[in-house]
């Protein structure tokens, strides 16, 4: 009798084990989506809704970074250039041709095309060299893009940036909120499918042991290229969403800080867990707004980033799995 009870308990525990729990079904995602879907019913404040969409968009951006950092094991310092490309492409096209749906679609198509081309070129140039040099080359290219955006004032208006009108249907705050939520869900589904696909599995193998992967007959460079293209395209889509949400684009979208934001979100939430990046986005974005508000009390709160920097260093040193990874490990220990 006791044994059966134990077995049942074990089964239940098994079910609650985060690894199984996340991997075995999509229902955690469904519950999450349901919760997020009712947010607008509880508040109609534009600021709150904006905060949530910001979390989703940066979450998508951070998840795309996780494909590189967590699933392929490469550190890029140039990820913002994809984000910025998407944002600028959208801003410039809509500003110059008018806020219509078809122009937005044109921007999306153009962005995807450009992101593929850029990631292939940079990847091809930089993926052959050691990881530290890869980080350096990507940083250098990101600087180039940043400076181009700054100097090409006739189109970008430099560091001051420019604002533009979004297509009419996106001006409704609810439409926009649900649109971005749908975008997030779509990206999560696609990326999950990607990391569980044969290619995604090979990427994880490369992260674990590049040489062994090569000696299984996999062309490592090609797989890394695929990874940078997927990450680049998703990041540029996040850039589009960002531009639409802000209705304003400036060089900030290209800055290295944006890449570092993604690095921070991914690492704090948990690299290699996908959802960690989303969690990280939530934490940093909330902190930025909440602590930023406290700056009125004391200017030190404007420097809230120090806390995240320290937290990040702690995580790299002592909790390499970030929040979700550590949580998983503790759970697994408890059960076994």
């Amino acid at each position, binding site marked *: 009798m006791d044994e059966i009870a134990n077995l049942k308990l074990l089964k239940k525990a098994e079910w609650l084990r985060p690894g199984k729990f996340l991997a075995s079904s999509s229902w955690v995602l469904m519950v999450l989506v349901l919760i997020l879907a009712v947010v607008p019913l509880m508040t109609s404040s534009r600021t709150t809704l904006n905060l949530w969409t910001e979390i989703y968009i940066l979450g998508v951006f951070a998840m795309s970074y996780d494909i590189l950092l967590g699933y392929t094991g490469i550190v890029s310092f140039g990820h913002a250039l994809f984000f910025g490309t998407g944002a600028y492409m959208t801003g410039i096209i809509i500003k110059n041709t008018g806020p219509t749906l078809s122009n937005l679609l044109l921007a999306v198509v153009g962005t995807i095309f450009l992101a593929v081309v850029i990631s292939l070129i940079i990847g091809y140039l*930089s993926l052959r*060299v050691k*990881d530290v040099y890869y980080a350096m*080359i990507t940083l250098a290219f990101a*600087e*180039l893009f940043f400076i181009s955006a700054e100097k090409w004032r006739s189109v970008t208006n430099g560091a001051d940036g420019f604002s533009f009108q979004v297509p009419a249907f996106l001006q409704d705050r609810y439409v926009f909120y649900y649109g971005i939520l749908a975008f997030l869900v779509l990206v999560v589904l696609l990326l999950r499918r990607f990391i569980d696909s044969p290619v995604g599995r090979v990427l994880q193998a490369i992260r674990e042991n590049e040489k062994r992967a090569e000696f299984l007959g996999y062309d490592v460079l090609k797989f890394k290229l695929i990874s940078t293209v997927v990450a680049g395209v998703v990041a540029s889509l996040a850039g589009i969403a960002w531009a639409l949400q802000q209705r304003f684009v400036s060089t900030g979208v290209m800055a290295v800080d944006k890449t*570092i934001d993604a690095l921070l979100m991914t690492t704090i939430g948990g690299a290699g867990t996908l959802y960690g990046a989303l969690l990280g986005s939530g934490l940093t974005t909330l902190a930025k707004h909440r602590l930023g508000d406290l700056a009125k009390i004391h200017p*030190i709160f404007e*420097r809230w980033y120090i806390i995240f920097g320290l937290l990040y*260093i702690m995580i790299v040193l002592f909790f390499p799995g970030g929040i979700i990874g550590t949580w998983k490990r503790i759970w697994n220990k408890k059960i076994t």
Partner: protein
Amino acid sequence: MDIFMNLTLSGLSTGMMIFLLASGLSLIFGLMGVLNFAHGSIFMWGAYSGVWIYFRTQSFIMAILVGMIMGMALGWLAERTIIRRVYGRHIDQILITTGLMLVLNEVLKAVFGPNIIAVQIPPLLAGSWELGGIIIVKYRVFTIFVGLVVAAAVHLILTRTRVGMIVRAGVQNQEMVQVLGINIRQVFSLVFMFGAGLAALGGVMMAPAIGSINPNMGLENQMLAFIVVVIGGMGSILGSALASVLVGLAGVYTAWFLPEAALAVNVLFMTVVLLIKPSGLFGMGGGRNS
């Protein structure tokens, strides 16, 4: 002709300041294999603390001294508390030094404020000489002079002193250095501190040269230092010096003809060097994946 002379002088002067930043970076990478993404932050801390002291004492020598001490203190602290935990783990080194950069930059903004601060050239070094129609800016000559002195000093330390010998030996085979009874970890701390001190010196020198300091100057100059280190070859001081001059000159010449392309030329240069000769033009060892 005088434009050419002026450009060359200005390029050499910029090159020498980049060299101060790059030489430390290069030594640290050559000896310990650590690519320090926080190097530019230490450079910036040097600049800010130097300027802060200068405003209070009006003494540029004090500024240099305090700036360097600040840099060395930060370098020592960083090595002791954080860097030494990640020796041999490349990805973690990149991640951790990036975190360090973030924290150092934010603390800097908290201490000195996030705004641009204007800096004048000290009166003694201000102004220029005129030589047969060519105007020579005194401060540029000064930076070139300091750069050359530092390059010579580092070179002499590396080739003539016991510590320098240990460093050169350590670049080749750390295990053997230990077997000879030398505590290499101590040497690591020393080199890290020394490299940080040089970066900070670069910061103090840079401030009057560009006329202002701002919290973004670290990353911008670090980028140039990376390029120099790649072109010059990791761990090679003379390589760093030559590459710094090359990068400095390439920067000003392109800036004269096509200002937007200055960085692009250097980045392209670096990429080409990495793809063709990953060990750098003057360096040993390989950078390519094996």
